[in-house]
Every structure is written in structure tokens, then in C-alpha cells.
């Protein structure tokens, strides 16, 4: 069973507020999921099973598109704007 402290730590790492009245249910559901995935500890694994071949696929360095081409569309979706910038609440107290 995942305890309340762990839930609160996960909530803060994942940046998801969990209201006090929901903690019990989240705890119950998450514990079920963790119990379930914990069975993987018993899985048969061959040491050093071949990893698939990975290689990097990189594009030429440079502008992917004309500067500012999509800016109005993209900025238009932000909840708050000021002078063409996305506006956020203050970060420091």
C-alpha cells in the first residue's frame, strides 16, 4: 500500500494537486496499479537480451520554418498574453 506521504510527494513531483477528500481513493487505486505492475519483478529475463539497434536521425541545423510563421496562431491559444508574450504568475515570492 502506498502511504499518504508518498501520494503527497508524487502529487508535487507530477504537479497535480490532489484535494484532501480524494487522497483516500487515489491511494487505493494507485496501490492496486502498483501491486499489479510489481509482478514484473518475477518476470523471466535473459541477461543481455539484444537491444534493438538505435540510431540518431537528425535534420540539418537551421530554422525549421520561417521565423514567426506560426507565432500568431500559437500565441492566440495562450490563456494570457502581454505585448506578444505569454504571461505567467510571478515565480518568486
Amino acid at each position, binding site marked *: 500500500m502506498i502511504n499518504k506521504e508518498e501520494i503527497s510527494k508524487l502529487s508535487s513531483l507530477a504537479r497535480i494537486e490532489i484535494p484532501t477528500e480524494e487522497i483516500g481513493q487515489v491511494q487505493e487505486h494507485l496501490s492496486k496499479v502498483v501491486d499489479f505492475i510489481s*509482478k514484473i519483478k518475477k518476470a523471466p529475463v535473459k541477461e543481455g537480451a539484444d537491444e534493438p539497434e538505435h540510431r540518431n536521425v537528425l535534420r540539418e541545423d537551421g530554422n525549421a520554418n520561417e521565423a514567426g510563421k506560426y507565432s500568431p496562431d500559437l500565441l492566440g*491559444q495562450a490563456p494570457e498574453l502581454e505585448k506578444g508574450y505569454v504571461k505567467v504568475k510571478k515565480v518568486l515570492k
Partner: protein
Amino acid sequence: MTRINLSDLTIKKVHELLQNGDLSARELLEFYAENIKKYEKDTHAFLELFDDAYQQAGRVDKQIKSGKEIPLLAGIPLAVKDNILIKNRKCSAGSRILENFTAPYDAAVISKLKNEGVVFVGRTNMDEFAMGSSTENSAFGPTKNPYDSTRVPGGSSGGSAAAVARQFCLGALGSDTGGSLRQPAAFCGVVGLKPTYGAVSRYGLIALGSSLDQIGPLAKSVEDAEIIFNVIRGKDKMDSTTVDSKIVSLCEIPRSGKNSKIKNFTLGVPKEFFEMNGENKELDRGVVAAMENSIAVLNKTGCVVKQISLPAFEYAVETYYIIMSAEASSNLARYDGIKYGFSAKGENLLEVYMKSRENGLGDEPRRRVLTGTYVLSAGYYDEYYGMAQNVRNFMRAALVDKFKEVDVILSPTTPTLPFKIGEKADDPVAMYLSDIFDGGANLTGIPAMSLPAGFAKVENGKELPAGVQLMAPWFCEERLFECGKLLEISN
């Protein structure tokens, strides 16, 4: 204008009718619109019907009138899952947090289909961020199974599957991270193809698990699915996991039949899929019957069906849920209430993040993000994520070996028939097990296709569809189509 029976239509038939002038694209759309008007209320397959569908169809009609040869998919009405971007259309991934998000560009698959002249009829309902197996996790209410409105259509591409089954369109696009095309295809009695990882560009697909996600077609027949797949596949510079279509058409693993007396396919049925992990062994009788029937049909056509063993797959669901949750927790970090989407008020920046994600994301996405955070956090990483990657490599290696013995693997698509709405709502793990046979294809990257394999009677005399799944080696989709057609004709 002759009366058309929509259930008889295939893409090729419609193409001929359109090209010969026996039917216009607008007339065709009217037939589908009639069906939507009649049945959509009881189905809820769509989140939005596009108001410009007739204009799209009109453009195709103009081309035909001017004497042009039209592409195979021109004028074909398709539906699109709500996680695939269509420029200037809303795209919400079934979530409140993106309820008012407007797509700033076309997904790669949409550009390709637009070039063909496809008519997009609407965007379809889905489990929020493609997390679920029933569409009950949609923030906008569940879709209902076309064969029984008290049951689920499967998910997460449940809206797309139901729309095809209900004859609201001739085909649809969906996405599949761990069964999200195949499981709803089985529950709705249609064909669903998850292509090889790298076959189809995900540019413009709202990401869930980036090492698992693929876009694929839902259709009424194997041939229709094949036609749509052949249009959407291929290398795209915007998705660096995609592979050149010349390579995509080459299946490097030789078929057994080519150098032996067996004329057709050798199929393997993994015994672990029937006795997994000591639990959930109980396949529904209807599903067993569908399997037996399919094996009999394939035997008759000259295929050899034999039992194989894939012990590495016994922990496929656990492995899948660890890797998918880890990737989802990272992919969903972008929904923070700052750049777009739902934003909650807060005193400071952190509070805006915390509250936007609390109120904008539903229960299942929150659960998976928390699970992903858990398996990636210090102290647990090796035990879960590291272990899951090892099992994943082990599974892949096992398949490389197994595909030397068999050409195609056959299994049920789902352990049960469509379940009741609400039945698994309170038990996330029970819901996860609905995809028990499907996640393996995503973890290893192989292509897999679910196709209808008959109906099973349930209480009150209702009949529900059952599906079987074919799996082939990497980039051997053609093998799925060929084998699928053998099964389809006989069913």
C-alpha cells in the same frame, strides 16, 4: 440516383461509382448523414460533425465533372479520432484540458488524405488522451456499442470503431498505443490495423507513449484498411522514427511457404495467451469459439496452425503499463495551463500548474501520470522502468526467433466480449486486462490487425461481435492483409 445499400460498399466500389458518375460524392455523404441522424443519438460516436463536409465532397464532384481521374480515396467519407490534428479544427483528445484547443496545422496523415480528396465527416470520441479501453474515460461522455447500447464499444478509438460499424462513414483513423485500434475493432465487429512502429508518421498525433504510439485505419474490410494504410504510410521528416516506404514494403523475414510444401501460411498460436500469469485465464466462450472457427477456416485453406510458446509475453501487460505510464507522465507534462488549453486561477505559477492539471485532467490521466512519476522516481527506477525495458528486449528477441518458425501469430484480440458500461469503471486493473493480448505488438513494434471472427450470443438473445488478431514480423503488413483476406472470405 439509385438507392445504395451502405453495408455493401467498399472503397473500390465507391471509387468506381464516383468515377463513372453513377453517384456523386455529395449524394454519398447524404446517405451517411441519414444514418448519423438516425443512430448517432444512441451511439455518441462523434464529438463534432464537420460543417464543411458537403463542401469537401463538392470539390471532388467538380473534379469528376471536369473529367479528371480521381485518386482512390477521393470523395470517401472518413472519420478522424479526436487526437489527430486537422488544421483550424478543434482537437481535444477527449479531455477538458484541451476542450477549446484549435489545431494550428495538419497531422502528416491528414495532409496525405487531404491530397487524395478524402471527405472528413467529423472527429470521434475517445478515452481521454487515449487512456482506456471503453471510451468511458472521455470527458464528454461514453460512446455506446453499436450492437448493444448498454455495452462499451472498446477503446480508446471507440468512437471511430463505432462510427464505422454504424455506417456513419466508410472508414476512420484511430491510434493504438496498447490495443486502442484493435480492441474497439473487435468489440464493434470491424477491422483495425496497428501498423509497424515507424510505418506511419505521428506528426500531429497527440502523444501518449511515444515508443508505442501508431496511427492506423479502422475499416469494414481488410482491403479497405489496406488501401488507407498504403496512403498514410511512409517516411516523414517530421517524425524521425518513420522509415522509407521502399523499405516499408520489404519484409525481410522469408515466408515458410516459399520453400516448402505448405502453400499457405504457417500460423502460431501462443499458449501463454490462454494461460497468462496464472490469472485471467478464462476466455469468454464466444472468444474461444471465434478462435476455433478461425483456426478451422485457415486449416481448410491450406494453412498450418501450430501451438507455440512465448514465455516472454507473460508479463506483457505489466511491462506495457510501466513503460506507457512513464512516457505518458513525460508527454502530459506540457499541459500546464500556461501555453494553451484550460487554465485555472492561482496565486503563483506553481498553483496555476497544480490546479490546472487537477481540474483539467480526468481520473485516468492523473492516475497514469502519478504511476509514471512513481516508476521513474529515484529508488524505483531500476526495479520498474529498467526491468520493463529488459523484458521488452526479451520479448522482441523471442519474436525474432519465433518468426523463423511461423509466418503469422494468431490470437484472440480480447479475452472477453464487449462488457457493460460501468462494469470496470472502479477497477483500473480490470480495465487494463482488456488489452492483455494487444500490448505485446506495441512493445515489440510488430504490426497487428484485429478482424471480425463471428458473433456470440449473450443473455437476452443479443449477438455481440468477437475478434481475432493476426501479428506479423516488422514491416510485413502485406502478410496480415493476405492472411486476413483468407479469414475474411470464409467468415
